[in-house]
């Protein structure tokens, strides 16, 4: 771990300014991912701006009939919130499928969205990784693991985004609200927040330096059923081999791409009256994988079909 300085931001504006003006600075909220990465010198900020105690930890109803979730609200509190459980069960289930109870008690809504990949080679500083050291190469390509992306991967990176929560938020058509470096505000759809790796996998979102996620806004709950499913090697505390979230007519996949993957082809097929299996097949027809990841295409197809069926019967 490299030495760093720390400040607790007095308010959001000061926090955004402090990070925007210092290229070595990063926001710290729950710290469940960042601090681990710092210990391994995968992240090497020289300055931390603690935003965990800013007044963004609440939840409120929006005029549109949805919910505004504070960026600093913990995953545990969000999953347990009665309105979330009642109106957005796909979100509550997705959050509870992630990490462990201890981590969910610390991790925040904004931090969860911005967590970094769990790719083994990203975590191993002795190995090349374009995400960690741009230009050094991708060790995951050709490696023994079978857990890489099957949608939108590039020759530079096959890492996946592993958040469960983000998959549900994508299916729910949620947005993030941010404070921009100039103190203004903007709104970004969750499905547009993260980028595909392309040639620069180290750039994971379109957020500007110092731009702070202050809230996540859920639109009114969609008509139709919701369902969440996660496949993993063990029953808890394991990142997903594949995740599927369904909310009404919207479908999103997790652990299949560099970002939460909105399954638009599946959605279109469903809208056109296709069966769950046909819709799932329509989406994975666009998947791409080497031999080591080929099994994942079948897994996602089967999981998507079953989860779409489950959502239908949960209607």
């Amino acid at each position: 771990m490299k030495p760093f300085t720390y400040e607790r931001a007095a308010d959001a504006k000061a926090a955004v300014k402090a990070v925007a003006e210092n290229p070595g600075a990063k926001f710290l909220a729950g710290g469940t991912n960042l601090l681990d990465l710092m210990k391994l010198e995968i992240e090497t900020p020289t300055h931390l701006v603690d935003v965990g105690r800013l007044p963004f930890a609440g939840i409120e109803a929006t005029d549109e009939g949805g919910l505004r979730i504070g960026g600093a609200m913990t995953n545990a509190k969000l999953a347990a919130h009665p309105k979330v459980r009642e109106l957005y069960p796909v979100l509550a289930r997705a959050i509870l499928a992630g990490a462990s109870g201890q981590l969910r008690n610390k991790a925040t809504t904004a931090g969860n969205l911005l967590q970094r990949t769990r790719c083994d080679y990203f975590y191993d500083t002795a190995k090349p990784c374009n995400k960690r050291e741009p230009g050094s190469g991708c060790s995951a390509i050709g490696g023994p693991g079978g857990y890489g992306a099957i949608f939108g991967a590039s020759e530079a990176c096959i890492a996946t985004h592993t958040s469960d929560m983000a998959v549900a938020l994508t299916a729910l058509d949620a947005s993030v609200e941010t404070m921009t470096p100039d103190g203004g505000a903007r709104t970004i759809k969750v499905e547009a927040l993260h980028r595909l790796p392309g040639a620069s996998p180290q750039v994971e979102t379109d957020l500007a330096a110092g731009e702070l996620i202050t809230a996540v806004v859920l639109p009114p709950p969609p008509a139709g059923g919701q369902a969440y499913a996660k496949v993993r090697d063990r029953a808890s505390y394991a990142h997903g081999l594949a995740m599927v979230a369904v909310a009404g007519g919207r479908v999103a996949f997790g652990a299949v791409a560099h970002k939460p993957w909105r399954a638009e082809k599946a959605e279109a097929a469903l809208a056109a009256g296709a069966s769950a299996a046909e819709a799932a097949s329509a989406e994975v027809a666009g998947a791409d994988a080497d031999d080591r990841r080929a099994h994942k295409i079948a897994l996602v197809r089967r999981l998507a079909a079953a989860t779409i069926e489950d959502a239908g019967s949960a209607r």
Partner: protein
Amino acid sequence: MTSVRDWAEPNPVTENRGGVIGKGVDRYEGALKVTGTAPYAYDTVAPSPPAIGVLVTATIPRGRVTSVDTAAAEAAPGVQLVWTHLNVPAQAPRGTRANPRSQRASNPALGSDRVEYYGQSVAFVVADTFENARAAAELVKVAYAAEPAVVDFMASFDQATLPPDEEDVHIGDFHGAFAAAPVTIDETYFSPIQNHVQMEPCATIAWWEGDKVTVHTSIQMVKGGQHALAETLAIPSSDVHLLTRYIGGGFGGKGQPYDDLILSALAARALKRPVKVAYTRQQMFHGTIHRPAVDMRVRLGAEPNGRLTAFAVEATTHCARAATFTEHAANFSRNLYAAPNRLTGHRLVRMDLPHAGPMRAPGEAPGMLSLECAMDELAEKLGLDPIELRIRNEPDIDPETGKPFSIRQLVRCMTEGAQRFGWERRNPVPGQVRDGRWMVGMGMAAAIRGNFLLPAKAGVRIDAGGIITLRQGMTDIGTGTYTILAQITAETLGVPLGHVRVEIGDSDFPPAPGSGGQFGAATAGSAAFEAGMNLRRALTELAVGDPNSPLYGGPAEYVTFENGVIAIENRSETLAALVGRAAPDGIYVEGSISPAADARDYSQHTYGAHFAEVGVNQVTGEVRLRKMFGVFAAGRILNAKTAKSQITGGMIWGVGTALTEVNAVDPRFGSFVNQDMAEYLAPVHADIVDLDAMFLDEADDKANPMGIKGVGELGIAGAGAAIANAIYNATGVRLRDYPMTPDKVLAGLMAKGL
């Protein structure tokens, strides 16, 4: 010399008048551990504040260090020294054994420019704080000249040779009998590299007083660690005081010393202040040992009635070039089932991977994953119940050696287990039982694990207050050793448990071999028992010879010890009264145990039977345990609670073995892919549901004076095979490649059109 016949006499432990033996008493050190106040090695408070050392490790599997740039690290804040092979203090060359009685030879750290495996220590940084040491360690830049390395086991079978001093065991004519057998199985099973992932990483704190060094470290063998450090530093072992009071898991991985022990002692000497060193979680995976992968071919030939006529288990495994170790995955099969024509043996591939070594139930743990599935496959071919097949091949005498069994209750384990588990609910036709999207199946497997007794000593002291203190150079790696030593001592001397203190993990105490091979309880416990018996004799002598004692004049042979009172019929006094008056300085005696001269005339093992019910998700291929139950026969049980904890812990390892635990080698780097506990998937609480075990009543009077046997490893033996068999029963998919992860299960389901 002792004979096993001497052990058949009743004694205080076998009579158990105080009822302390077998009772599920709480852990002796439990309160300290759950309150976080048990000082593990790294927590030990040194006489003055320690400096902190951090290792820098190699990132190639084989080659040479060509240069090390330490300038930046040396200039970093708080740094006190930076060592590489160029400037580390002199150590005895590897393998030196200046004292022929040393249990371990020299094992220098940073000994040369050679890199023999990925993760080997290549530099060492000591600073005033952990943070400074770690930051500086990242500044050390090492350049290598890499050499071609053999790191791909499956691609290296052509290099397999017989292990040293070992031949295949042929009995009868296996090949002829197998060719002639009407029903045969010929299948190959694979068990991958696994890691111990102990909760506590390896750690040592060291300081010197004159020529003597004190080390608090985390090691399973007290004498082994003491001798290794003394040989490496070329000092007498009497100048090494090694303590290992609390150990956060060992599982065989801490049976040997590592660089934390050597470098902390060297640095403490150089800096003239205490130094402590711990491996990081990531460093544990490469820098310590692992269970090697094993490829196992099983061939069974049987008559239509199920009687085995031909039996072969052949295992191919690997170890590091510089550290010979054989995972004896076929050994267990030599004592398990009757068959007149037999072939068993091992092949070993020397590789440039980190060191392979013992991990909980070495041999049995991977080995039984093969045969116990092959028996399931054979049973199906024969149309027999898997239990019935095993009963039909139950031997009357040891099938390899022809020796009588000391006691063997394998069949009772299976039949009792079947009844309690509800084995009759199993549909023998696979793929028939559904629970929603889950396909449900049951499987069983037998368990066998050897029992051992090694030489050991113990000392026991009674003070003027009647408090009895057992001292032994033994370790408790989380198994319950403290507790069972207290129970043995209390029962042997007829005192309440609260009158007994146990002090272990100290090289100044009478030596015991430590924890490993499930020999700890029997070995250390028997020495404690003998020491206790010697104290009984001393106290008897004291009482009958003391004119002020009501017991004066004897007869000594009528003396009893119960509830802290020494008595001859209605004449009695408390031990405290006797010792306080007649031996106010207390009495200290020692005792020892050695294997009986005729112990090897018997085939002696622990046995069990596992039963598992699993659900297999038909959509995803995920396997989840639904129920698991085991019945075990392992001699007299000393503590119902800690023994069951050991056995169920082993069964949980079996769940991990079957479903999740693997560390893949990346052949491009010669390194393991998983380097933390988020990625190396041992079972978590949510994986373990409805898991239980029981012990049969048993006393093995050929084992030791108390008739006890080990339970630390038996629970894992065969456990994973029961789950594999349950997966087959649930789905009709027969997997032979552990662990049975969703990708493999799903491929099997899809191949069946499911």
